[in-house]
C-alpha cells in the first residue's frame, strides 16, 4: 500500500512539474501577445495630445504609428565604436561563433535524446540500451549548456562595450523579444536540469512517459529560443517592421517575421542537427579511442554509428533548405544574391564545395570501414575501388572554379579567364552532375552497407536486385546525360535541369533504400555485427566528419553575415566603424580555422569532464552480440 501511495505521490509531482513547464512555456507568449497584436486600439486622445505620426514599413508596406527613434547615424568615434587597439569586429566574431557552436550543440543534442529515449520506451527488448544512450547524450550537453550560457554573457558584454550604439538600437526594437528570450532561457535551464537529474527517479511506467514529454517541452523551448535569436540576424539582413529611417512602427511580429526568418529557421535547425550528430559521433570516437575494454569499445562504436546516422539524415535535406534560403535572398535583393554566389563572396562557395566533397568522401569512408565489423562484407570489397574512383573524379569536377585569379601574364598564356579544357568543368552543368553522382554513390554505399552481413531470402530477391541494378545504372546515366545536355541548350532552359537531376538522386535514395530494407526483412545473417571491431581510421573519419561540419558552419555563417557589407542593418543603419570592409578570403579562412580549433579544444574539455562524471557504466554489448541500430539499417 505504501508503494502505491509513493507511486501516486510521484505521479502528482510529475504532473505538477509538467504543468509548471507548460505554464512557463506559454507565459512569455501570453505576455508578448498585446505587444505583438499591433492592432490594439489606441486610447482616446486628449485634446492637447500630439497627433500620432505614421510611417510606412520598409518591407510589409503597411502604415503604422512611429513609436521608436530613428536608427542612429554613427561616426567613427570612441562614442559609437570604443576600441582596445584591436579589431573589435574580430573579438565579436570569436565570441559569437563560439556561442553559436555551443548553442547549436545544446539545441541539437536534446532532440537526439528525445528520439532515442522514445525509441527506448517503445522497443521493450532494447529499452535499457537506448535509455542509456539517451542519458549519455544529455550528460554531454549539460556541461556544454553552462558554457553556452557563459558565452552568451560574453557576447552581450562584447556588444555593450564595443558596439554600444548599434546594440542600443537593436535592443530598443527587440525589447519584448529579448525579455521573452530571457524568460524562455530560464525555463529551458530549469527543464534541462530537472530532465537530467530526474532520470533515475522517472525511469519506470507512467513516470517515464512524463519524462519523455518533458524532453518534448525542452525541445519546444529550445527551438523557440533559436527562432527568436534568428529573428535578430534576419532583421539585420532583411529588415521589416521599421520605416526607411529605421523607426520602429509598433508591430513586433513584423520585426520578427522578416522575409528571411523562416528560411534561416529551417536551415539552422537542420544544420544544428547535422552538427550535433557530428559532435556526438566525435565524442563517441574519442571514447572509443580511449576505451580500455572491448565492451566499452563496442558501446562507443555503436553510439558513434547512431549519431553519424542521425547527422547524415539531417544533412541530406540541408542543401534544399539552403536552396530555399538563397532563393529568398535573391527575391529580397537580387544584388545580395549576386554578391554571394557570383561576386565578392563567390570564392567562399568554392571552399564550401571542397568541404561538402570532403564530407561525403568521409561519410563513405566511414561506411566502408564499418563493413570491417560485418562478416560477409568481404563480398562487396571489390566494388569499393570503383566507387572511390567515381567519388574522386566527381570531387575534382565539383571543386573546379569557373574562373581563376591570375596575373595578366598568366591570363595571356592561358588565352582567357577560363582554362581551355578544365574551364568546361567549372560551370554549373558539370557541377550539378558531379554532386548528384557523389550523393547517389553515397546512397549506393549505404545500401551495400545495409546488406553487408545479410543474404536476402525473399522469393523475389533476384527481381529486386535486378530492379536496383536498373535503377542505379539509369540514374547515373540520366544524371550524366542531363549534365552533358546542359552544354547544348540556352541558360534559361539549362537552369531547370537541376530539378530532374535532384529528382533522380532522390529516387535512388527513397526507392533504393526502402526496397533494399524490404528485401532484407527476414534475411539470413552471415554473422552478427561485431561492434567495436572497426579500425581506428573509421573513428578518425568520424572526427573528420565533425570537424568538416564545424568548419562549414563557421564558413557559411561568415558568408551570410558579410553579405551585409557595410551595413549593421541592411539599408537602414550604416556601419561607420573602421572595420566596415570585407576581409580577404585568407583572413576569413584563418579566422574560421581559429574558431574551429578553439571550439574543439574546449569541447575536448567537455568530453573529458563527461568521462570523469560517468558514474554509470555504459550499457555494454558483449563483443559479437547484436546491439540495436536505427530503423532502416541492417
Amino acid at each position: 500500500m505504501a508503494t502505491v501511495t509513493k507511486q501516486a505521490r510521484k505521479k502528482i509531482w510529475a504532473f505538477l512539474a509538467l504543468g509548471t513547464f507548460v505554464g512557463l512555456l506559454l507565459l512569455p507568449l501570453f505576455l508578448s501577445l498585446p505587444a505583438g497584436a499591433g492592432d490594439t486600439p489606441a486610447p482616446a486622445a486628449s485634446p492637447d495630445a500630439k497627433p500620432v505620426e505614421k510611417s510606412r514599413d520598409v518591407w510589409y508596406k503597411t502604415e503604422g504609428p512611429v513609436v521608436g527613434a530613428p536608427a542612429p547615424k554613427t561616426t567613427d568615434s570612441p562614442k559609437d565604436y570604443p576600441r582596445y587597439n584591436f579589431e573589435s569586429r574580430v573579438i565579436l566574431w570569436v565570441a559569437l561563433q563560439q556561442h553559436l557552436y555551443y548553442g547549436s550543440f545544446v539545441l541539437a543534442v536534446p532532440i537526439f535524446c528525445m528520439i532515442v529515449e522514445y525509441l527506448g520506451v517503445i522497443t521493450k527488448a532494447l529499452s535499457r540500451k537506448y535509455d542509456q544512450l539517451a542519458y549519455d547524450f544529455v550528460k554531454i550537453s549539460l556541461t556544454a549548456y553552462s558554457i553556452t550560457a557563459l558565452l552568451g554573457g560574453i557576447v552581450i558584454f562584447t556588444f555593450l562595450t564595443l558596439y554600444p550604439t548599434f546594440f542600443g538600437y537593436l535592443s530598443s526594437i527587440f525589447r519584448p523579444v529579448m525579455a521573452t528570450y530571457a524568460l524562455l532561457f530560464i525555463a529551458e535551464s530549469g527543464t534541462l536540469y530537472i530532465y537530467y537529474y530526474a532520470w533515475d527517479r522517472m525511469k519506470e511506467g507512467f513516470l517515464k512517459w512524463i519524462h519523455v514529454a518533458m524532453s518534448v517541452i525542452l525541445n519546444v523551448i529550445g527551438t523557440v529560443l533559436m527562432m527568436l535569436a534568428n529573428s535578430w540576424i534576419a532583421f539585420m539582413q532583411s529588415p521589416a517592421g521599421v520605416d526607411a529611417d529605421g523607426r520602429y512602427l509598433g508591430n513586433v511580429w513584423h520585426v520578427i517575421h522578416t522575409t528571411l526568418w523562416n528560411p534561416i529557421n529551417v536551415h539552422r535547425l537542420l544544420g544544428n542537427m547535422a552538427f550535433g550528430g557530428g559532435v556526438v559521433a566525435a565524442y563517441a570516437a574519442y571514447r572509443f579511442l580511449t576505451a580500455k575494454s572491448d565492451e566499452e569499445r563496442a558501446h562507443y562504436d555503436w553510439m558513434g554509428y547512431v549519431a553519424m546516422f542521425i547527422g547524415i539524415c539531417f544533412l541530406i535535406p540541408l542543401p534544399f533548405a539552403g536552396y530555399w534560403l538563397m532563393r529568398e535572398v535573391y527575391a529580397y535583393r537580387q544584388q545580395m544574391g549576386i554578391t554571394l554566389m557570383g561576386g565578392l563572396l563567390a570564392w567562399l562557395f568554392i571552399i564550401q564545395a571542397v568541404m561538402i566533397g570532403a564530407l561525403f568522401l568521409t561519410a563513405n569512408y566511414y561506411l566502408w570501414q564499418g563493413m570491417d565489423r560485418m562478416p560477409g562484407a568481404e563480398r562487396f570489397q571489390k566494388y569499393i575501388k570503383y566507387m572511390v574512383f567515381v567519388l574522386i573524379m566527381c570531387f575534382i569536377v565539383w571543386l573546379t572554379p569557373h574562373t581563376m585569379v591570375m596575373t595578366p601574364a598568366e591570363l595571356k598564356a592561358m588565352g582567357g579567364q577560363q582554362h581551355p579544357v578544365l574551364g568546361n568543368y567549372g560551370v554549373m552543368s558539370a557541377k550539378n552532375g558531379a554532386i548528384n553522382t557523389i550523393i547517389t554513390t553515397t546512397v549506393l554505399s549505404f545500401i551495400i552497407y545495409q546488406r553487408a552481413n545479410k543474404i536476402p531470402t525473399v522469393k523475389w530477391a533476384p527481381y529486386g536486385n535486378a530492379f536496383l541494378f536498373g535503377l542505379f545504372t539509369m540514374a547515373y546515366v540520366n544524371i550524366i546525360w542531363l549534365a552533358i545536355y546542359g552544354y547544348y541548350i540556352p541558360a534559361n532552359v539549362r537552369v531547370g535541369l537541376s530539378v530532374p537531376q535532384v529528382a533522380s538522386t532522390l529516387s535512388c535514395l527513397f526507392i533504393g533504400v526502402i526496397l533494399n530494407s524490404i528485401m532484407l526483412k527476414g534475411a539470413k545473417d552471415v554473422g552478427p555485427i561485431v561492434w567495436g571491431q572497426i579500425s581506428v581510421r573509421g573513428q578518425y573519419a568520424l572526427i573528420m566528419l565533425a570537424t568538416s561540419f564545424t568548419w562549414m558552419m563557421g564558413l557559411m555563417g561568415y558568408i551570410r553575415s558579410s553579405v551585409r557589407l557595410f551595413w549593421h542593418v541592411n539599408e537602414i543603419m550604416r556601419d561607420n566603424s573602421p572595420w566596415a570592409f570585407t576581409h580577404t578570403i585568407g583572413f576569413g579562412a584563418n579566422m574560421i580555422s581559429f574558431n574551429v580549433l578553439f571550439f574543439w579544444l574546449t569541447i575536448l574539455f567537455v568530453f573529458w569532464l563527461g568521462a570523469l562524471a560517468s558514474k554509470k557504466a555504459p550499457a555494454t554489448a558483449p563483443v559479437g552480440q547484436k546491439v540495436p541500430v536505427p530503423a532502416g539499417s541492417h
Partner: protein
Amino acid sequence: MAEKGSQVSTRMKIAIAVISLILATGYFTFLDWGAMKIQGLDYFYMFRK
C-alpha cells in the same frame, strides 16, 4: 552462402536486368520531362530547335 535467388538461371537474370534497364529508362525520361514541365520548361528543347 548461396542466395535463394541463384536458383534463377543466368539467362533469366540477364532478361530481368534488361527489362529493369528499359523500365528505369522510361521512368527517368518521364521524370525529366515532368520535372521540366512543372517549371514551365521544354525538356526536348534541343530536339525541337
